[in-house]
């Protein structure tokens, strides 16, 4: 399902839902701000992708790791915290960083529900200066800068997460 569609459904749909629920519970209708709707919609999309990433990462951890933990007499929670999670971070990192990069680009979509993000401000600039090429190019370059910064940060994190691994 396209992210744009999710956004529309959440923006218009959640308003009806929230108003109905909140009037029933508190007798006061609540308002869903575009920011909240955008957050929820992109959050839902990310949640579904991220759960795939984590699932794959959990599967990639050998069953022997759990067994070894149990053999040491560790409790379930401790096995998770001390043995599984540190490995999970390393395994899930490439997938998660891809998600982060695509999420950053998806945020551009919220401009269609009147949220004043980078792209919408660009549109405002365009409509008053009539210089679409220049301003959209600048907007693109800003996004590019953001992904460049994220790549650097991700590279650092990756080095940190795989610090115990043999370097190839």
């Amino acid at each position, binding site marked *: 399902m396209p992210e744009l569609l999710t956004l529309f459904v959440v*923006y*218009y749909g959640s*308003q*009806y839902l*929230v*108003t109905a629920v909140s009037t029933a519970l508190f*007798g*006061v*209708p*609540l*308002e*869903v*701000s575009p920011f*909240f709707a955008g957050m929820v919609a992109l959050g839902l999309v990310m949640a579904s992708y991220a759960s795939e990433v984590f699932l794959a990462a959990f599967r990639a951890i050998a069953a022997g790791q759990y067994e070894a933990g149990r053999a040491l007499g560790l409790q379930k929670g401790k096995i998770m915290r001390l043995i599984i999670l540190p490995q999970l971070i390393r395994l899930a990192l490439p997938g998660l960083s891809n998600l982060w990069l695509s999420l950053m680009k998806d945020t551009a979509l919220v401009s*269609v*529900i*009147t949220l004043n993000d980078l792209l919408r401000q660009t*549109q*405002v600039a*365009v*409509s*008053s200066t*009539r210089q*679409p090429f220049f301003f959209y190019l600048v907007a693109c370059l800003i996004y590019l800068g953001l992904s460049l910064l994220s790549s650097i940060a991700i590279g650092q994190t990756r080095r940190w997460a795989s610090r115990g691994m043999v370097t190839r």
Partner: protein
Amino acid sequence: MRLTVLAVASLAAMIVGITGASAKDWTATTVRIGTDATYPPFESQDSSGKIVGFDVDVGMAACEAVSLKCEFSNQDWDGIIPALTAGKIDAILSSMSITEERLKTIDFSDKVYNTPPAIAVPKDSPITSVDLSAFDGKSVGVQSSTTHAAYAEQELKGADVKYYKTADDYKLDLSSGRLDAAMDDVVVLSEWLKTPDGACCKLLGTLKLVPEIHGKGTGIGVRKEDTDLKELFNKGIAAIRANGKYKEINDKYFDFDAYGGE
């Protein structure tokens, strides 16, 4: 457990913002008026982002006349009626024509203004009259979910009608030559043609009003159940019509009477 509930509730309140619409006493709260501020000179955003225009001035004056506290917020045109019915806003003052179609969903105050629709074309256009058959096979831009869109769909069967989200968007495409013509309110078009961006184009002429489509002028849209708010707006409009305030605003923007005949 109670702590969690409290935390969640306060978080929700923080993000969502509780609006006190339970009070039906309109004078005690701020009336939230939604507008699509891409429609100069009636409503637009100035360079600092403030919403300005004829509708805004008239709305504020009318609110003041009946001592209502009003506040304008920018809304997406396509979603402005859902926003009203869902309670996101309390009223719409956005050059919205009072039509039968819309009256099925919402209610309107008395008329705010009434100006005819018109067509603009590039200066070198081969189209010379507003004869509707001249637009066969031509691309005509309109803003979606407007009376102009409904008119184009019904009357310009042979034309390739393009639906734009805002008036700004079709103006960009008309000046680049992507559109052969654009249809909108005569005031909106002629104001734009006066600006440097509108230098590309000229006004072809005004169109005859079709009452079933174009309705009887624009009004302030309110929810059907809010008849008290509608009455307040009607009183406000009548008051500024009577005390000359409306004329003052009218003259600030136009050199003709935007109210139109009774």
